[in-house]
C-alpha cells in the first residue's frame, strides 16, 4: 500500500477525492464562474442555462464516487501508487515542463540578445518565417524532452539519449515544417 491512503482502502481514497472535487465544483466553481443558472428566462421563455450541463457532469462524478463508497470500496480491484512510482512520474513531468519552456522562449531570447548586442532592431515575431531561427526552440526543446525522459528511465544522462532527441526533433521538423507552409512548430504560433 502506498503512502497516500492513511486509513482507507485505495478505492475509498479514490472515491473521497472525487467526492470532494465534485462538491467543490457544484458548490463553488459553477455558481461563481457561469453567467446563467440552470434555467434562464429569455425572450419571455424559459431556456436551458449554461449551468445545467456542468452541474449534471459534476453530478455524475458525485454519483460515481458515492457508488464506489457504498458498493465498491472492497472491490477486488484495488490500486496503489508507491512513493518511488510517484517520484519517477514527477521527474518525467518536470523534464517535459522544462523542455516546453525552452521550446517557447529560447528563440525569442536568442534574438533579443542578438538584437541587444548588434544594435539591430530585430524581433523574433517578425523573423518566424526564417529557416533556422524558427526551428531553434523546437530543436533544443525536443532534444531536452526526449533526452531527459530517456535519462529518467535509464537513471543517467547519456550523450546517446541527447543525440536521439536531436535527431528525432530534426525528423519532425522535416516532416511537419519544411513541406507545409501553413503548419507551425512551437513557438511560432504564439509570438
Amino acid at each position, binding site marked *: 500500500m502506498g503512502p497516500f491512503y492513511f486509513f482507507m482502502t485505495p478505492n475509498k481514497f479514490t472515491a473521497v477525492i472525487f467526492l470532494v472535487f465534485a462538491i467543490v465544483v457544484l458548490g463553488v466553481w459553477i455558481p461563481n464562474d457561469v453567467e446563467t443558472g440552470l434555467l434562464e428566462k429569455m425572450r419571455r421563455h424559459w431556456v*436551458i442555462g*449554461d449551468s445545467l450541463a*456542468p452541474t449534471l457532469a*459534476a453530478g455524475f*462524478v458525485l454519483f460515481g464516487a458515492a457508488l464506489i463508497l457504498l458498493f465498491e470500496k472492497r472491490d477486488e480491484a484495488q490500486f496503489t501508487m508507491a512513493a518511488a512510482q510517484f517520484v519517477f512520474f514527477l521527474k518525467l513531468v518536470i523534464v517535459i515542463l522544462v523542455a516546453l519552456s525552452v521550446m*517557447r522562449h529560447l528563440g525569442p531570447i536568442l534574438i533579443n540578445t542578438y538584437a541587444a548586442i548588434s544594435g539591430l532592431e530585430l524581433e523574433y515575431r517578425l523573423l518566424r518565417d526564417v529557416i533556422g531561427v524558427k526551428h531553434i526552440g523546437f530543436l533544443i526543446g525536443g532534444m531536452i*524532452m526526449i533526452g531527459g525522459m*530517456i535519462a529518467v528511465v535509464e537513471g543517467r544522462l547519456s550523450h546517446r539519449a541527447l543525440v536521439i532527441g536531436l535527431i528525432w526533433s530534426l525528423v*519532425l521538423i522535416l516532416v511537419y515544417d519544411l513541406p507545409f507552409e501553413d503548419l507551425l*512548430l512551437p513557438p511560432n504560433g504564439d509570438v
Partner: protein
Amino acid sequence: MSVLDYIWLGILAVFQGPEAFSIFGLAISITVIMVISGFFLGILVGATPGLAGPVAMAISLPILISTFGYNTDALLPVLGFLIGVMKGATVGGAVPAILFNTPGTPDAFMTTLDGYPMAKRGEAKRALRIAHFSSVSGDTFSDLVLIIGAPFLAIMVERYLDLPEKTALLILSLSFISAVVGGSVGRGLISTGLGLLAVYVGTGEDFYPRLSVGTQTLAQGFPISTSVLGVLIIGAVFKELDDLRSDQRASRMKPITTSDTNSALTLAERIKLAPTIFRSAVIGTVVGALPGIGSTLAATLGYTAAKRRHDDAEGGKFGEGVPKGIAATEAANSAVSGANLMPVLSLGIPGNAAAVFLLLAMDSISGFNPSPTVFKFDPVNLNPELVMAFGIFTTMFLANALNWTVGGRVMRSMGFMIRIPKHILLPSVLLLTLTAIYVQETRIEALYFALGFGVLGYLMRVFGISPLPFVIAFILGAKLEETARQAYAATGNDPWFLFTHPIAAVFVALSVGVMILTSRKRGSV
C-alpha cells in the same frame, strides 16, 4: 439514380479521383495510394509494442488536412488513409502479442494467451497466420454487415428519432459506456463526468465563456486534440514508462523468432477454424454496432465464448497454445471496426478511439456530415454524401483486399519492430504527439493542456479508471448539451421531453437499466 448508380459512383470516386501518378497510361488515384500507405503504416504501428492505430491516426490527421485541405476533395484520400491505418493496426497488433507476449494494441491482449505459448512451441509463424486469417475474415464480415445495415439504421433513425429521442440516445450511449467500459459503474461514471465537465469549460450559449475562471487561456475551452490525445496517448506513454520501471520483463525476455518452417495453413485447418471465427465475428459485429463499447470487450467475449464451447480433449487446453484461442480473439476484435461505423455514419456517435478520429476527420473536412441524410437514396437529385459513403465503403474493401493478399506477408515480416526499445520509442511518441497538437492549435497553452490531460490519463489508469468513457464523453458532451437545448426548445419548452416521447423514455429507462444490471452483476462476483 438507382442504388446501383450510387454504388458505382462511389467506387468511381475512389478509383477515378484526382490522380497521383500513372503507370503505363493507367491513372492511379490518390485515394488508392493513401489507402495503401495507410494500411502499411497501420501494420507497422500495430506491430510496435506501445503504439496503436489511434496514435497513428491522431498524429497523421493534421498532416493530412494540411496536405489535402478542407474541401470535399480531401474526404476520400484522408478517410482512406485513416481507414487503412485502422485496419492495418488491427492485424499488426497480433505480432507482438504472439512473439513477445505483449499486446501491440489493447484488444490483442487475449491473443497473447494462446499465441505466445504457440510461439514458444516453435509455431510462431503458424500462430501469425491464424491470427491474420481470422482477423481478415472477421473484418470483412463486419464490413459487409455495415454496408447492408447502415442504410437501414439511417432509415430507422430518420423515421423514429427526433430531437428528444436523439438526446435520449446520447444519454443511453454515455451510460452504456460508463457501465460497460469503465472498470466498474462508479469508476465509469467518474470518467464520463470528468470528460463532460472538461468539454463544458469555455463553451455554452452565454457570451461569458463558462468555467474559464476569467482567463483568456480557458476562454476557448480545451481543444479536442488536447484532451483526446492527452488522455489516450500521453497518459498511455506515462503508464507504459511506469510499467517499464516497475517490471524489468522487457529487458530480460528475448523475442521469439519466426523460424518455423512448415507454417502453412491447410484448407482443412481453415475450415475447422471457421465456426469459431464466425461466432466471434458475429459477437464482434454486434458489440461494434452498439455505441461506445470497444474491441477489447469484443475480444474478451469472443474468447470466452470459444473457450466455453471448446472440448479440451481435442487439441489441448485454452491458454496453452490452441489455434482456436487466437482465432476467436482476432476475429472478434477485428469485426468491431466495420460495424462501429454504423453509429458513426448515421448518428455521429463514435464507438471506439479509431472511430473518434474518423469522426474528427469528417467534422473538419466539409461535404460529409454524419447523419441519416447521408443515406437518402434520392432518385432525382444526386446526393453527394451518399456517393461519399459508398466511396468510404470502397476504401474499406480496398484495404480488405490488400489485407487478404499481401497483409499476411507484411505482418509476418514485422517481427523486428519489437526490438525498438520502449524507453526510446515512448518519449519520441510524446514529442510527436505534442507536435501534432501544436500544429493544429498553434498555441503553447494547448501543449500544457495536453500534458495536464496526460497526467489525468495516467492517474486514471493507475486508479483503474478507464479513460475511454472520458474521451467519448468529451466528444459527445457538446452534442449532448446542444441536442438537449434544441429538443427543449423544439418541444415548446417541455421540461419533461425525455419522458413524454415514448422512444426517448425507453432509451432513458434502458440507460438506468444498464447501470443497475452491470453494478448488480459486478456486486455478485
